[in-house]
């Protein structure tokens, strides 16, 4: 990246000032975006129990705290039960739908699509209250199953939209060739279509995973004490007593989600 620009001969002083002003402004903006996330990481290694700078010294005690706490262990276990399960359901149902809808045009398709992506639009608190009141009546409140299916419903639209986007550039002749060579529709899907659209499916699945993994509002309503997930545990921690253990969790989560994102960007880069 060229940090010092080569201005064309006709550039006026005002142009140059404008260019520099924009750079400074944008770097300030990127700082605003990144600083909060970077600032919390060192505090997780602080020797002090206050979340403030300057830090008196370094220590690993908050990570020790974290890894010996049964509350956090249970929350992590729950998150890694709920999010992958929700992702599997969302990915299977979403991919099927995308494959069905990508190539056809019919009256009402717009309406159907609106219905399918409704979970992205409906305010999350409405989803939380609605599912809580309804699931309580049918005995699904305070269960893993109830939480998983709602998280799956919230994630499925991401799978549908990303897979449909991938299918736009999919060459349908491959399917015709496969069918004419004697493969059945199911075999064709798994051996021809799926390998080609796999990057879209994986991106969608990562979106669905992140949606569930970061979801706290529905969990607040729907999860019982034994289904507390990481964000739910953080919510309690921040509300009651924010301490460096929270910073330690935050640091681990930042590393985890940044890795997920880089994987996603890498997949997308390969697709391009």
């Amino acid at each position, binding site marked *: 990246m060229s940090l010092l620009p080569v201005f064309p001969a006709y550039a*006026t002083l005002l142009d140059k000032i*404008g260019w520099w002003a*924009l750079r400074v*402004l*944008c770097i300030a*903006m990127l700082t605003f975006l*990144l*600083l*909060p*996330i970077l*600032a*919390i990481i060192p*505090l997780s290694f602080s020797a002090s129990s206050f979340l*403030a700078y300057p830090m008196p010294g370094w220590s690993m005690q908050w990570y020790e705290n974290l890894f010996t706490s049964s509350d956090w262990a249970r929350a992590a276990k729950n998150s890694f039960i709920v999010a992958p399960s929700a992702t599997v*359901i969302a990915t299977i149902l*979403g991919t*099927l*739908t995308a*494959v*069905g809808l990508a190539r*056809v045009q019919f009256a009402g398709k717009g309406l*159907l699509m609106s*219905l*399918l992506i409704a*979970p*992205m*639009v*409906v*305010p*999350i*608190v*409405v989803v939380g*209250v*609605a*599912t809580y*009141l309804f*699931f309580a009546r049918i005995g699904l409140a305070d269960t893993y199953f109830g939480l998983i*299916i*709602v998280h*799956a*419903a919230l994630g*499925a639209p991401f799978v549908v*939209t990303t897979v449909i986007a991938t299918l736009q550039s999919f060459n349908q002749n491959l399917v015709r060739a496969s069918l004419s060579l004697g493969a059945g529709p199911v075999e064709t899907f798994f051996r021809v279509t799926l390998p080609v659209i796999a990057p879209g499916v994986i991106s969608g699945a990562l*979106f669905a995973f992140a949606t569930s993994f970061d979801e*706290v*509002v529905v969990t607040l*309503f729907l999860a019982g004490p034994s289904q507390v997930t990481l*964000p739910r545990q*953080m*919510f309690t921690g*921040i509300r009651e007593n*924010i301490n460096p253990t*929270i910073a330690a969790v*935050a640091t681990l*989560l*930042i590393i985890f989600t*940044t890795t997920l*994102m880089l994987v996603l*960007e890498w997949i997308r*880069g390969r697709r391009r």
Partner: protein
Amino acid sequence: MALALTLPLLVFLLVTLLVPIGALLMRAVENPEVARSLPATGAALARWDRRTEPPAAAFAAVAGDLASLDEGAEAGALARRLNSEVPGGRSLIMGTYRAVTGEWKSQPAVDAAAMRERMIALDPRWQELKYWQAIAKNAARWTPDYLLASIDLRRGIDGSIERVAEDQRVFTRILGRTFQISAAVTLACLLLGYPLAYWLSTLSARQANVLMILVLVPFWTSILVRVAAWIVLLQREGLVNKALMSLHLVAEPLTLLFNRTGVVISMTHILLPFMILPLYSVMKSVPPTYLRAAVSLGSPPLAAFFRVYVPQTWPGIGAGGLLVFILAIGYYVTPALLGGADDQMLSYYIAQYTNVDVNWGMACALGAVLLATTLVLYAVYRRVVKSELSLG
């Protein structure tokens, strides 16, 4: 074939989300307690003018209805419902219920006029019109009351719709505050996001991709991590206050947390990528030659920017602005953790009515208002953007 593949997800969404949301909307207008527990009373009061003493038949009907309730739980639900309408309704109903199912059972049946005497003797409050008015008003299975209450309206005794007293108009204030915070956040996102998106759009694809990752890191970071991070930065001893004080911009540390400032700053931080992404995709398709042409034809650069460049990015501004606003009005976690009592948005009160007050009718009515607002804005968004919502 297409439909067969779509069907599983459709059915799944129907069961997990759409049916529960439909039930929520029904609950917003449902008023089952009185209609279920006091059917004969409702009928006896149907022709009552609600201003004079109710007919003696109504007294007999109350006693009859209460006597034929299957279980105490039903009487309890009825008592709670009337108590939320008129204070004291609970003890009146429960006292009468115990008498009807207890000592009166062994006494000989009496006619309506005698039953009226007996009930007034048991509890003189049966002479007060307000309890009867509450029963008559709630005798129908469906009620607009919760929805009316959610916009600070109510039905008078004669059924006419009126605004509630000035000092009780809480919900319009909450709704106004929700819009105000969302508008402030949208504006802040636009002011911060526009220059950044513009800069990204002028870079080569490789450079833009690298910087875009920096924009996306916070986008992917858990909201709770970011809330915790902002608490660290904005607290009294936090980095922001330390920096301001060492630059001698302020003498005293500012209060940035648990007030409106903290809520707007953190919500802007969380929603900024939703502004930058649509702006960037529109700006990439705007040819830079128009701007250069305007400048070479003698326009001052700034004027050219606002009169030539900005109008070409209206679709991006519309899409980003609406998206941020739609997402902002539903916010719950950020104001709940970073705001004070006066910074809570509509979602907070929906949760409050569900979990703390256990007034589900009110919670559902407020939910219906939030849902309707969101859907209207989303319809506008669809007209502006003409494509599906997509974050990919």
